[in-house]
Each structure stands twice: as C-alpha cells, then as structure tokens.
C-alpha cells in the first residue's frame, strides 16, 4: 500500500514537472531554423568573433570544445558532451592575470581580456553551470577576468535529445534536457532542423541580423520536440535536493560513506578541473630573470595543501574531509545559500575518477539511507 502510494506520488510529480517543461516550450518556441540555414548562421557568426568555441571531434570518439573559427568541424547534431566544459575558457587551467615587468622593482602591467568568443553547442547542464558561476564571480568583489570574458561571450546552447552518457543525471538535477536561462540562443534538434529560442538581447541581435535564416516553427516540429524531451525524462526522477541538503546539513550521512571516499580518492584533481561549477584557484608567479607573469591556475579542496597554512597547521587534516568539503559545498551549502545545488549532473567527475567515486550514487545512498 505504502509503496503504491509513493509510486503514484512520484508518477504525479514527474508528470507535473514534465507538463511544466512543455508549457514553457509552447510559450517560447516560435522559431525554426533548417540544418542548411544553421550552417549559414554559423558561417555568419564566425565573422563576428575571435574564437568560435564549439564541440569538435578530436581523436576517435573524443569530443572537445575547440576553436573552429578557422579549422571548422564544429558539431551541431552530436551525441555526448565535450570532455571539458566552457569553464576551460572562462576559468582556464592556467591564465595570465598580469605581467611582471620587473620583479625587483615591483613593476606590473595589467592585461585585459578582449577575446570575443561565441560558445556554440553548449549543453543545458553546462549552460546552467555558467549561470551559477557568473553569479558567484560577480558577487561582492567582481572578478574582472571572469566578468570580462562573460561580457564578450555569446552562448548558443543545444538541447539534448538523448543522454550524453550513461552516468549523467542532468534531468535529475533539474539542469537538462533544455536550458532554462543563461543562453543567448538555444537550439532544440528535431528531424528537419532546430527549434530556436532567443534568451537575451544578444540573441535578438543575432536574430535580427540573420532574420532571413529563421522561419516560424510548425506545430509539427513543436510536437516533435515535445516528444523528444518527454522521452528524455521518462525513466528518471528528479532529485529532491532540498531534502538531500537537509540530510547533509544535519550530518546524517553515514560516517562509513566518508571513510570509504577517503580511501578511494587519489587526489588526481580531475573532478575539480572538469567540474563546470568549480571555481577555486591559486596564483603562481613565473619569472624569467626579472620579468614574467602572475598566473591564475585551477586549484581545489582535494589537496591537503589547499588549506594548510604556511606554518604547517592544517584546519582540515583528514583526506576524507577534503572530498567531503567538495560534496558539501556543491550539494548542501550552496543549496542552503542559493536555493539550488551546484551540481548540474554532467557526470564529468564520475567519468574521470580513478577511485570510482560517484556523486550520483552518493546522492542515492544518502537520500535512501535517511528514509
């Protein structure tokens, strides 16, 4: 009886959230672009940017965001997702923040980031991550390096017709298969072409400039898109992340789960490097004789040295607590702070973890264990 009730409730919740997506679709989707016209649009867009960052097939099945402005080869209708998210361009593994003209004389020269980028084919999960990151970097002290790049960027998202990997859980984390905001244009693939959403002024501008390439979407295409997106979430259930945060905040996660993680994590730094919402960094100076640059580089909580102080005292001495910090920041504290978690379910951290740590399984174990 109880089981049945839970099942019905779940089914109901699923239907409701589906209905919401569909309503949104019907309200917004008005435009359509054919595959041929999209090629034309891409050609035009490339003229107006310095870098056209798009998913590209590299070796064998590897899909990686690359600059295809000159080389071409960007993927439109593609399955899967790029190994790196757009974060690799907005907060790269290493970047110069200013030049050191003279180390001895403490003379510095500012660098301004002026590259105009178009991010093309961004998946909804990554799109959501970008909106979260932007909020963070613009909060209180504005991070000029991030903000300048954002201001000069255009984001063209492509909704997902199918899951990018077996391990992804974007739908469950409420960040797929369509992007809700952050994009300038969003494309939803259907058989004959793409439904088009305009999400910003930048997007409208592009539309205006290329309006010959767009047509009004047919009801058939809208129906088709609806069906595709419906299919996407069919077997899935949204994660109750508020409940998850509550359980974690009350410290009800079994100690053995953290202990196990401590014995799995080999501090490879893959998760913090690929996670589209990881924002931590450090600086390092690179000098050749008296000249050089200060570089910002990706850093994060899995290192003991990340929190250890110069004198050697360590506020977080145990390795398991470094990983716990990663999980708590994303799933618990950010949910309490912002009302949503900072995990978008892209599964990058799962797919590269040499310790087979699986954030999705963690979420399942925690929510199940508490019931």
């Amino acid at each position: 009886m109880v089981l049945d009730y839970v099942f019905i409730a779940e089914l109901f919740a699923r239907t409701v959230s589906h209905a919401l997506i569909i309503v949104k679709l019907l309200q917004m989707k008005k435009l359509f672009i054919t595959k041929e016209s999209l090629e034309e649009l891409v050609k035009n867009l490339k003229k107006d940017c310095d870098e056209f960052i798009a998913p590209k097939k590299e070796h064998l099945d590897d899909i990686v965001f690359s600059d295809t402005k000159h080389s071409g080869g960007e993927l439109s209708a593609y399955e899967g997702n790029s190994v790196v998210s757009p974060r690799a361009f907005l907060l790269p593994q290493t970047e110069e923040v200013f030049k050191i003209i003279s180390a001895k004389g403490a003379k510095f020269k500012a660098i301004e980031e002026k590259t105009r980028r178009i991010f093309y084919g961004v998946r909804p999960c990554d799109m959501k991550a970008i909106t979260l990151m932007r909020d963070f970097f613009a909060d209180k002290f504005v991070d000029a390096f991030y903000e300048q790049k954002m201001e000069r960027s255009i984001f063209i998202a492509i909704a997902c017709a199918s899951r990018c990997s077996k391990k992804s859980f974007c739908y469950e984390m409420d960040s797929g298969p369509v992007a809700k905001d952050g994009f300038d244009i969003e494309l939803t693939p259907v058989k004959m072409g793409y439904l088009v959403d305009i999400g910003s002024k930048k997007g409208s501008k592009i539309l205006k400039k290329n309006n010959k390439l767009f047509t009004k979407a047919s009801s058939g295409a809208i129906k088709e898109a609806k069906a595709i997106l419906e299919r996407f979430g069919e077997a899935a259930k949204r994660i109750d992340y508020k409940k998850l945060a509550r359980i974690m905040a009350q410290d009800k996660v079994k100690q053995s789960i953290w202990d196990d993680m401590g014995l799995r994590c080999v501090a490879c730094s893959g998760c913090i490097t690929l996670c589209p919402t990881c924002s931590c960094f450090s600086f390092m100076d690179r000098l050749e004789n008296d000249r050089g640059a200060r570089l910002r580089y990706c850093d994060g909580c899995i290192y003991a040295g990340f929190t250890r102080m110069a004198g050697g005292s360590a506020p977080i001495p145990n390795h398991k607590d470094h990983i716990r910090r990663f999980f708590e920041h994303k799933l618990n504290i950010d949910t309490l702070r912002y009302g949503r978690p900072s995990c978008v379910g892209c599964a990058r951290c799962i797919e590269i973890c040499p310790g087979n740590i699986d954030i999705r399984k963690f979420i399942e174990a925690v929510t199940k264990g508490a019931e």
Partner: protein
Amino acid sequence: MKNEYFPKIVVIENIVNEAPDVKTFTLRLKHESGGKLKYKPGQFMMLSLPGYGEAPFTFASRPASNGRFQITVKKLGSLTAALHDLREKDAVGIRGPYGNSFPLDKIENKDLLFVAGGIGMAPLRSLIQQVFKNRKNYGNVEIVYGSRSPRELVYKDEIISWQDNPDTDIHLTVDTPDETWGGACGVVCALFPKVKLDPKTSVVILCGPPVMIKSAIKDILKLGFRDSNIYASLERHMKCGAGKCGHCYIKGKYVCLDGPNFSYLEMKKLEINS
C-alpha cells in the same frame, strides 16, 4: 573594469627586527598607486612579492594620518623568507584592505580583554593602539600575552609603555624562560585567573596559533565570558582576499570576506574552534 588581483605598489620605509625570524615593516603607498590606504583595525592585505606570490598579512598598526602602516612578519615559508631579505626603499605589491574589522562598534565603552600568542599580537596591536589613542572611549583594558620565549615577545618596549595608560593591566608569560626573565611562565591560559574584568560584560579579542585560540576560548568560557562577546582573528590559507579563490571557505563563509574576525557564536555555527 577593475582587476581585483592587480596590486598597488608600496615602498618599505623602515624595517625593525622584532624577534628571531620576526620583522616589522613600515610601508607606504607609492603616489601613483593612489596615495593613502584606508583600513580598519583587524583587516588584512594581500602582500605580493613577485616571484614568490602573495600572502595575507593583517595590519599591525592603527590607521595613521600619515598614510604609513605596518605589518609584522614571521619567517615561515619561501615568501616570508624572501620578504625578510628585502631592504628599506624596496618596493612590493599589496592588495586590499580585505576582510571585516574587529567589532569596533561593539567594544566602545566596554571593558576589553586582549589575548595574544606569539606573532598573533600583530593584529591586536592595531586595535590596541587605536583604543589607547581614544582611551576615554573604552573601559578597563587587560592584555594577556604569551610567547615561546622572552626573545620571541614582539613589540616588547611598546607593550611595556602601554602599561602607562590608565586602567590598564598587562600580563606577560613565556613557555621557556631565560635568565633575563622574571615574569610568569607557562601558557596564556594560566594567566586568566589574574584577569579582574567582569566576564558578563567584557569583550574578549584573541589572536594566536590555532592551539592557543582553541584552549584559550575554552578557558575563557569557563570564567563566564559570553560566547557572543568573544572574538577571534582567524588564520586561513588565502590567495585572493576577495571571496573567490576558495581556500578559506568554511561552510558557505569566507574567512577573507566574512572574517577574519569571528565571534565565538559564529565560530560555533561554522563548527570551528580556531
């Protein structure tokens, strides 16, 4: 757009050997960097030494009208070692000020207990100087200060001169005395029984190594001081000072933004004790 990570240039005007491996640097902003630096006691700066990177240092002197400010630096790693090798007139970069100040509005007209260990006297000195500058705005002041040895007590002469202020008591202690030492021996907590302030209304401000803060707060609470009246200046690994780099993050708070000065009430919420 202002690049938060681009340092201003300061010149070292004076260097004083405080203690073995501890030096106090007097700094002044170069004119092209905007003249004066406005800060409050308890705030800190990111000091930039090209080739070695950056490290946080709290202002060790009260905000002065002549634009000069001090930091006291203990040689611990490569950056601090390189800093110790600098001379007067050398230039370095700074960013800031960052962080909150000591709870200046909450300490007015209150009796104050300062507890410091070792180099932890540096941030307190900035506030203590301010308090003595405006002596009548505050109640009784007691200072408990300890270090490993007499040689390692910083600002010795100045601390002795503080005693000349009215309604002020200074208690000094060292872990290991030498032949010159006639004062108390042992940890700072051992001196707490000598404190005569009313625990119910006095404000306590601490700074020192994590172990000291931890045990001192415990003992202070036992004496009846209120956890909302106990403040500690905390130290964490920091790279940006602006709440971005993530090193000093604790449960949604950033020591560089929301601290470095926390009341014990806040510390309990963050589940930290030092």
